[in-house]
Structure formats: C-alpha cells, structure tokens
C-alpha cells in the first residue's frame, strides 16, 4: 500500500541517498538501519512530507502523496525524535488533547490500561515537566495507541526507554501487525520481530 520509487535526496551538493525503493503492504514491518547521520531521519521526514525529495515518488494506495496528502495523513502516525507533549500541561491533559486532535475513538478504560502497562499511571495528574526522560518518551509512544492509525512511522523508538518497555513496544508492534497494520521504524536495536524487512542505508560520500 505504500510504495517508494527511486527516492533521491541531495543537500548542499552532497548526495544523502540515491535511488531508494521501498514497498510496504499490511502485516509488514520495515526496519531502517544505518550508522549515525546516514539519513534515516531524513528519509522518515521525506515520508511525512517534511522535506521535498529531488527525485522519486511516493505512493499511498496508488495516489502520489505529494499531490494528495489528506488521505495519507489520515492513516499515518509519526513518532519523531523529539517529544511533542507540552511540559506545562499534565499528562492527562496532553492525552485528552491528542484524543481531540486526532478524533480518536479510544475509550478511557483502554487509555487507563495503556498508562498502567507503561507504568506512568501514577503521573496522570502531574505536569509533564516532572517526568523523567524515559517517561517523557513513553508518553509520546502512547500516541500510537491513541491515534489508532494503520501506518506507523517511528524514529528511534527503542532509545531512552527501559528494558520492560522495550519488550512492551515489540509486543505492541506484533499486535499491530496482526491486525493489518504497517510499521516503518529506524533503530540501532535489533528487536526480534517477524515479517520484518531490514533496510540498511549506507553512508554516501559522493558529491554532485
């Protein structure tokens, strides 16, 4: 359902990556690997229309996302490298905001169970500024469950969280795949997941 053809991106006369092809159908995971600075975040940004590629096209269900993106965005959740929850609001206020923003149909029981599993339910009514770095990241990952979208794009989701949560995340991925979801994530970790295609991006030293 997601098709990437011949994607090339240049910056400041340097080639970041060239001629990348991806294809993602339901029940499938793509794991982007590569050393630091090789372009994984750039690729994810291009996939969410934050950057314009110099060459190549991206199709979601046959439509070019650069011409018609509303359908694409309605089916997409993007967890970035930075956390978007507001520090001056409490955890539950941030979650309620995300619920309304994405018109989510999740009910409060499911939400409570998610918070409990991630062991941040005791912070429900405290400001996000009091959370530690890992709990801050876990709150961001709650968005995956709240938004209930098909395609998940994640940038380094396994970093900053404890081992329990790492296993939890892998479980969540597996459940999502079983219910016809699709995932693309970049990580240095090697989680054990089925149906995974590993794409290694190599460092490119050529210039234009």
């Amino acid at each position, binding site marked *: 359902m997601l098709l990437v053809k011949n994607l090339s991106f240049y910056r400041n006369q340097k080639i970041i990556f060239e001629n990348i092809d991806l294809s993602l159908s339901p029940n499938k995971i793509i794991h982007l690997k590569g050393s630091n600075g090789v372009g994984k975040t750039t690729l994810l940004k291009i996939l969410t229309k*934050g950057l314009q590629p110099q060459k190549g096209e991206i199709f979601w269900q046959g439509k070019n996302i650069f011409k018609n993106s509303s359908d694409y965005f309605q089916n*997409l959740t*993007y967890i*970035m490298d930075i*956390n*978007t929850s507001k520090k001056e*609001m409490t955890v539950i206020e941030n979650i309620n905001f995300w619920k309304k*923003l994405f018109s989510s149909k999740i009910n409060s029981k499911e939400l409570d169970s998610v918070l409990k599993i991630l062991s941040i339910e005791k912070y429900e009514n405290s400001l996000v500024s009091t959370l530690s770095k890992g709990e801050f990241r876990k709150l961001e990952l709650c968005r995956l469950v709240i938004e209930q979208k098909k395609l998940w794009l994640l940038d380094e989701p396994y970093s900053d969280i404890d081992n329990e949560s790492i296993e939890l995340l892998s479980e969540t991925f597996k459940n999502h795949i079983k219910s016809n979801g699709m995932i693309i994530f970049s990580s240095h970790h090697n989680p054990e997941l089925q149906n995974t295609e590993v794409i290694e991006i190599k460092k490119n030293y050529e210039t234009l």
Partner: protein
Amino acid sequence: MKLFNSILAVIYREFKLTFRNSYDILSILIFFILGILIFVFSIGPNKELLSQLSIGIVWTLLILATNLTFKKFYQEDLNDGNIYLLHISGISYEIIVIIKLFCLWIFFQLPFLIMIPVAFLLFGNNFENIYLVMEIFIISSLILTTLASISGAMNLLNNKNIALGSSIIMIFSIPIIIFSVSAINSSVELIQPQINILLGILFLFLAITPWISAFCIKIAISNK
C-alpha cells in the same frame, strides 16, 4: 467536522497554556506602564507638551510591546515538534497561522486596548470621539499582530541576530502609523475614509500573512 474539532482542540490548548503563563501578559502590561513613566520623566512634567505627544508615545509603546511578542508565535512550537504534529494531523500551515494570530491577538494586544484609555487619561487628553480612536487602535493592533506573525515566521532559524525581528516589525509599521495618526488627528468628516484605508490595509495583511508565514515555516521545517 473532524477538522473543526481539531482546530477547536488547538485553540483550547493555546488558551490553557497562555493562562498558565499569565505572568507573561502581565509583565508586558507592566512594560507598557513603565514605558509611559520613562517618557514622562524624559520629557518633563509639562502637561500641554505631554498631551500633544500622547498619541505618539502610546503608538511607540504599542510597537515596542509588539516587538517583544514575535518570538512567542512559532519558535517554541517548532522546537518541540508541535507544528509538524499539527500539520500531520490534517491542519494546514495556513490554518495554524490563523489560529496563532487569533490567540495571540486576544492575549497580547487586547490587554493594551484596556490600558490605552488609561494612558490617555494620564496624559490629560480628552477625546470627544474616544470610540473612533479606540476603533482605530483595534484595527492597528490587528495589523501589528499580523506583522509580528510574519516577523516571527521569518526569524525561526535566526539565532545570531537579535534585533532583526524587531526591525522588520518597525519598518513595516511606519505606513500604519502614518495612516492611523492622521486619522486620529483629522476632523470628523475626514475620519471615516481614513478608517476605510486602514481597514483596507488590514484586509490586505490578513490575506497575505497566512500565506507568507506558512511559506517561512515550511522553509524552517525543512531546514531544521
């Protein structure tokens, strides 16, 4: 319908965040009062002189106070990724700009419209047509908010130059000042056409600001 609910959610969050930081608004008001005091001390307690200069002083302070607010438009939301998040949730950049214009006008310009009659009182100005004067100030404060939005969007990736954003606001507010002050000082027959000119400038800026600010935000996002 979904889009409307998302926009309402964003506006509600903006209100909540600004109320939590209410000291921000109050300190800008204190800045305004201190500005009046500084002008009074530097010009001297001459009552006629002060009442003649009052419009100019109030205008200067309004623009200086707007200079302080342009950073609050987009910088923080760009840094923690919220602008990108809102874009992916289906709200286009132009609508984000309009939401920000609305919220920041209410929080950072409307308090001044309460302070301005007080300032005129302190300077001993009696305006017969105080309603028209306030109308002119309301229109001009909207235009200043749009200028601050453009300046805030242009300065998103600018870390080196601190006075540049203020310079942009000040240089484009010169024609606004010319028209508003001549409107306030003109006779009753001529005041309505001058207000119409100001309204024309306002609608022009309301039309181009979302487009220009969204363009600058896109540039900032792709180059972060």
